[in-house]
């Protein structure tokens, strides 16, 4: 008995030590197969000459990085991505907050609020393909937008919203804003509903007006949600591909070329998979900077 007891103990302790790993094994396996392996492969591809099409690719060091980073179109894509993403996130936030405050108002009855909540959330329910088709038709030179704008005398009615290089980036940004604000709205509405009424009440008793209450009570209370949402939106919007590809294809000329369309063209139009991987790695690095900010912010909150 005295000899069997320690062995049993060690067996128990071994299975205890293994146990937590076994619990996380399925998730770890999925993460490795679906995340780690593809990411490592893409990073590996970026150091080879044209992979996939070339059966025996050779290591070319940082040549692909030099080629992508010195490409003028890549610079345009970065600038366009920055404008597209910044404008989208700021507008999502402002419109989302405005609509959330309207829906949180006590001045309207619950039925009307439900109706508007349904209406406001509609754009978010459409997939990118539907949004693209819808707005391509609306913004067509012969479309509804031009007709209405001409009817009220704002434009001459022949504006080429998506086909004019000077207007195209603004137009696709507008479409992206339209399709993305409801997510902000819903999240901020939840945040607004969680603000204790006594805070506003106390501020009012202290003589604060509506604007002061907004700046000194509402905004500080919503700040954690606003920062998280803005960072997430920054990451998501920088990866927006389908909407731009289906409305303008990165054109006219390179007016709406963003990092995602640039990478896609390298891979599926030029079949330069190594260069596409390089571009993807650069996008990954940019996204990681934002992701680090997000994680740090979350950690600071916790």
């Amino acid at each position: 008995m005295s000899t069997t007891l320690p062995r049993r103990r060690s067996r128990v302790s071994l299975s205890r030590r293994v146990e937590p790993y076994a619990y996380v094994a399925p998730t770890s396996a999925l993460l490795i197969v679906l995340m780690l392996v593809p990411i490592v492969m893409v990073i590996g591809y970026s150091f080879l000459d044209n992979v996939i099409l070339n059966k025996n690719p050779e290591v070319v060091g940082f040549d692909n990085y030099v080629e992508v980073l010195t490409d003028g179109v890549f610079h345009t894509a970065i600038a366009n991505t920055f404008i597209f993403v910044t404008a989208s996130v700021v507008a999502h936030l402002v419109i989302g907050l405005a609509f959330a405050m309207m829906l949180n108002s006590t001045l309207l009855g619950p039925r009307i609020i439900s109706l508007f909540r349904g209406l406001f959330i509609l754009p978010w329910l459409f997939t990118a393909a539907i949004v693209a088709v819808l707005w391509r038709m609306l913004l067509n030179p012969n479309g509804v937008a031009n007709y209405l704008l001409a009817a009220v005398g704002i434009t001459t009615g022949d504006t080429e919203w998506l086909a004019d290089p000077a207007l195209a980036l603004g137009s696709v940004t507008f479409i992206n804003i339209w399709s993305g604000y409801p997510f902000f709205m819903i999240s901020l509405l939840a945040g607004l509903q969680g603000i204790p009424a006594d805070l506003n009440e106390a501020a009012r008793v202290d003589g604060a007006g509506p604007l002061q209450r907004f700046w000194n009570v509402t905004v500080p209370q919503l700040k954690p949600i606003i920062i998280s949402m803005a960072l997430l939106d920054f990451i998501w919007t920088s990866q927006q591909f389908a909407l731009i590809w289906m409305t303008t294809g990165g054109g006219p000329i390179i007016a709406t070329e963003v990092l995602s369309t640039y990478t896609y063209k390298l891979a599926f139009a030029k079949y330069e998979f190594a260069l596409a991987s390089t571009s993807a790695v650069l996008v990954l690095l940019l996204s990681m900077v934002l992701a680090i900010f997000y994680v740090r912010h979350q950690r600071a909150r916790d």
Partner: protein
Amino acid sequence: MATSTRGRRSALKLVGTVAATATILAVAGCSTGGGSADGEVTIEFAQWWAPELPEGAFQGLIDQFEEENPGISVELISGPYASTKEQLFAGAASGTMPDVVGLDGAWVSDFAQQGAIADLTALMAENGMDDSKLASQIQIDGATYMIPVVNFVYPLFVNTDLLAQAGIAEVPSTRSEFEAAAQAITDLGTASGWVLPLSLEAPNGIQNDLMSWNWASGGSMLDDGGLPDLTNDDVVSTVEFVQGLWNDGVIAPGAFTMKEQDKVEEFTNGRVGMMIDSLSHINLIQESNPDLNFDIAAIPAEDGYEGARGIPYASWGIGVAEGSEHQAEALKLVEFLMSTEINSELSTIANAFPGNVDSAPEFGEGKELFEKAFEIYQSGYPANEFTGLPVAEDLMRQFDTEFQKLLEGQVSVDEMLATVQESWSAEF
């Protein structure tokens, strides 16, 4: 205590079972095989044709093949053009291409270079297939990689009502007649003279709507060695002609992001007087707007040009996967589709022209435009110099981007063509 240990053990067992099952499923999912124990061979045929034909029509032909070839069964993998393309490129990269593949001329060079599709010249010789009746074969370095099964031509479509309202008695046959007609239609104020889709997402407007003007006047964009020759007089004259139309304001607005389907829609709704388009869209136009009166004609040529006119075409091409374990059976299916009778039948139901020289589509009531197109086709020659070129779609996109700069006034014709010549040359 004991219960909790048992509970943990069963949890461990459960995790182990799930992991083992997942592994087995994953491994099983990776295995492929076209053969079966009873000697029956199953070949896969990926194409975008079946969805574009009347429902069940293509399956009917395949059923006939299976009847005539006991022991071979065909599994059709049908999808729209774009998804078929993506599927084939993914299959080519991973070495899992279906045995028989529907091909577009623009993909052939890339697949051949990748070693994804088989050398049909060798395969036909090995299996004794007679290729003397094939109207054309797409070759790379002297070896055939694609056989056009049926061809769709791109004539000029004319809205005859708009043309009559504009006071033009005859369908234009020369570039100057076309320019005058386009201007007259635009002057009506209700429509544009011509439509030019230049979307960079699908840049095939460069092939069908722009370079077709060059081919119609006997011009070429390649030199005798098949290399880019974009600075020759014919290409310069074509680009200047289209630029002139743009400057005259006769091209429908929104050209820079317009796609082929938008072009057809503009014409169908009577907002455009003339367009160059695939014959396969006749049914679609007639169904969408039965009241539209339109005619087709050969694409106008340069003034004074008397030679044969090249007419752009697109093919439903066919090829065999290099990695197929059943290449002989795959070639039998190719031979079946290229046979005189079947090829006639397929071209009739597809509103296309046959890939077998002895086949002829059936004409009849309601097919007058189709018959007229066949006359245009026979009086000229099929021309599509993008077929078989490397990264053909990207060549169009490069041309398209620079052409948009030209129309925006950022570069001159010579600068534009020199830039494209340089970027194209780098791809060859």
